């Protein structure tokens, strides 16, 4: 009788599976947004669809990565397999697909029995996913590249831990970079997809330690309006993605891009990733999420350095000096305790000294060990102060402008100018990111990254459109030093620029490097003094090159409605073609909206004993 039953069940099951596949075909499920989101299919160049997953483990069909329909059929067959309960069963390996198919095909779960997935269930039970937030650690002071930022998702549990956001979970997409790769290899591999990218989950407080403490970045948290059902589906999909490789591309399929791809699984009607074919800059992805109506609440978490700076302003110069003295062992906690100061003043000194010491320690572990005793004394002394309900500090101030409200990352500029008496029309196009004369609101002060900036110039007289300058990369960081922080100001510019030679004009490839110091002037301007190294290559130079060193002094003002950068430089080109290059320039930007500016630039330069002037009025639009 058993012998009669077994084949009967298998035959029946096969018929049912075929029936399900028929329904799937009829409903064109392989063409649905949900299926494409689950398998990360995007239109291909050679094939109609290609999955962004670069891992054979992710597919059940042999050509699953380029064949949505085959993958759908293979998935239906796999979830229907009558194998014993195991975490390796396709229902357990691909629970998001399984869940979606059960609903889309109205699968009779008496005919295809649900499998018990012990590990998956335990995982869900530990996390108890309730709600999602998009987390955006923004820029790190003195590291313009960090202006690009990063995004991750926070999954908040649905139990008593909902009131303790630190113990939520951070869902993150990251590159598995080889720690031994040097920085050049790192940059190149990152750009071309040379690193595998993996999804993973860690306690949220670990991520915060990394970003707001160790990396000193402000963190913005955006609560998202996904329902419990949507969150569950996203988590099932996260389970599907564990250990699956998606090649990591810095500019496109990066951390921020994949947060969007996860959201599209939770709610397939969302159209987020298609907006980021060419470049996926984290702040732009945050804007896309906000524009899609997903954000309910925002929360701001200041970085350790932000808090230190704000707190320093609430203390007297003398008390700040005491804080620095403690960090240099020029005074002790006991001595401060004996000073005639109010309880609040002492509490501030102890807290600020401790926080400053931690800041110094995070970048230098040996400092940490040396400071251990004093740090402990500071906390012990602080614990003995009763503040009688008075707040020791004023509440942390948020930035006036949110990151997402800053100007958009692409910029096009049209200008009219005159160079050496000849009038011209100028066109500039920059895909990313921000310069110091752009409106600073929502961006880091004194920080600049220009990436792939094209400048074309058309002189009215000779009626020729020429490349004026192509900037591969230009980075600048003018961060003032103060008693607490002693950053180095620096800059780099790698470009091809049209410029005079002794006897002619040429397009020279050049690399310029600056480093020096900056100081704040009355909280209004930043003055900088930097040494400069300038290297140019062009066949029209004598000996094919021109290399020099010099100095530049500059003044930067960044107000919300206008910005000004003025500099004076002198560079002695001594190697190859000799030249004394001197230049005075002013760039003034007037920002009449977040995404429109007017800029006036004036450059007076001296090369090969010839002076020339260049003045231009430009309209800039950010998109």
């Amino acid at each position, binding site marked *: 009788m058993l012998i009669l039953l077994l084949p009967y069940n298998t035959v029946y099951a096969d018929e049912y599976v075929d029936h399900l596949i028929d329904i799937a075909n009829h409903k064109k499920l392989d063409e649905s947004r949900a299926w494409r989101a689950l398998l990360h299919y995007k239109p291909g160049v050679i094939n109609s669809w290609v999955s962004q997953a670069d891992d054979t483990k992710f597919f059940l069909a042999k050509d699953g990565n380029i064949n949505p329909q085959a993958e759908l059929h293979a998935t239906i067959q796999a979830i229907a397999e009558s194998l014993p309960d195991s975490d390796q069963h396709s229902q357990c390996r691909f629970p998001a697909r399984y869940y979606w198919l059960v609903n889309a095909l109205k699968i009779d779960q008496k005919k295809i029995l649900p499998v018990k997935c012990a590990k998956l269930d335990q995982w869900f039970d530990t996390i108890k996913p309730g709600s999602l937030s998009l987390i955006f650690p923004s820029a790190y002071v003195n590291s313009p590249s960090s202006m690009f930022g990063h995004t991750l998702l926070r999954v908040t549990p649905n139990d008593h831990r909902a009131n303790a956001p630190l113990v939520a979970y951070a869902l993150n997409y990251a590159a598995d970079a080889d720690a031994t790769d040097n920085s050049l290899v790192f940059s190149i591999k990152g750009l071309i997809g040379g690193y595998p990218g993996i999804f993973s989950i860690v306690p949220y407080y670990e991520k915060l330690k990394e970003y707001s403490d160790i990396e000193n970045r402000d963190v913005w948290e955006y609560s998202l309006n996904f329902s419990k059902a949507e969150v569950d589906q996203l988590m099932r999909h996260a389970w599907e993605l564990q*250990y699956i490789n998606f090649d990591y591309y810095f500019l496109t399929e990066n951390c921020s891009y994949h947060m969007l791809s996860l959201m599209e699984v939770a709610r397939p009607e969302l159209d987020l990733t298609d907006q980021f074919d060419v470049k996926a800059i984290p702040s732009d992805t945050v804007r896309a999420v906000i524009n899609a109506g997903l954000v309910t609440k925002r929360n701001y978490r200041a970085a350790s350095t932000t808090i230190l700076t704000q707190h320093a302003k609430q203390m007297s110069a003398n008390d700040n000096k005491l804080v620095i003295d403690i960090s240099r062992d020029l005074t002790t906690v006991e001595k401060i305790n004996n000073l005639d100061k109010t309880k609040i003043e002492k509490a501030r000194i102890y807290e600020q000294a401790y926080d400053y010491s931690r800041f110094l320690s995070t970048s230098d572990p040996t400092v940490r060990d040396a400071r251990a005793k004093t740090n402990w004394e500071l906390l012990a002394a602080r614990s003995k102060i009763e503040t009688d309900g008075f707040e020791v500090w004023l509440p942390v101030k948020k930035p006036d402008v949110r990151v997402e409200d800053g100007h958009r990352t692409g910029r096009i500029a049209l200008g009219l100018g005159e160079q050496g008496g000849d009038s011209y029309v100028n066109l500039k196009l920059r895909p990313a990111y921000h310069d110091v004369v752009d409106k600073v609101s929502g961006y880091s002060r004194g920080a600049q990254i220009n990436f792939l900036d094209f400048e074309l110039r058309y002189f009215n007289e000779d009626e020729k459109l020429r490349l004026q300058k192509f900037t591969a990369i230009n980075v600048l960081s003018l961060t003032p030093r103060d008693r607490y922080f002693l950053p180095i100001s620096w800059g780099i510019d790698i470009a091809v620029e049209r410029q005079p030679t002794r006897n002619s004009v040429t397009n020279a490839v050049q690399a310029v490097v600056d480093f020096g110091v900056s100081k704040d002037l009355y909280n209004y301007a930043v003055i900088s003094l930097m040494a400069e190294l300038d290297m140019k290559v062009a066949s029209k130079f004598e000996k094919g090159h021109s290399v020099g060193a010099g100095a530049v002094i500059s003044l930067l003002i960044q107000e919300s409605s206008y910005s000004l950068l003025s500099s004076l430089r002198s560079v002695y080109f001594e190697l190859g073609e000799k030249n004394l290059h001197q230049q005075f320039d002013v760039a003034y930007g007037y920002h009449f909206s977040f995404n429109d500016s007017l800029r006036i630039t004036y450059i007076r330069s001296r090369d090969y004993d010839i002076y020339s002037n260049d003045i231009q009025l430009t309209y800039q639009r950010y998109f």
Partner: protein
Amino acid sequence: MKKLLFVVLLALSAPIAVQANSAGCGLGSTLFKGQSGLGPNVMAATTNGTSGNQTFGMSTGTLGCNAGDTVTAAVDSFIDSNMERVARDMSTGSGETMETLAALMGIQDKDKSQFFEVSKQNFSKIYSRDDVTSSEVLTALKLVMLSKDDLAKYVA
């Protein structure tokens, strides 16, 4: 010069995020001793991510412990991974870390301010030395809580 070159090239490193060194499990850490591999994290300070060959995955990293589903394990793990932050907040009797600790211990709202006040007053007993370990902190904290009627009930 090498640092400058490094710093130059990372200008090209757009949003790279490399997997972090995730929290350990158990009660092994010591106050003020480095936990999360600060060496790699210095690189992090400029490369917009951290480096390290850590276990990637979904089931590891939940509270840092595989057995992270009991309340006690969660408290242990949290203190272990946040020794400095807990100390910092405990010394002031306030702060998000202390709020989190209270939430993990299941302390009700009406008992929270007493919890903060009592732990602050007994800071030097709980964080007794500059190299105190997390298990010592936990034991001391529990002892202090046991000595107060309203807080004793939260100690398992």
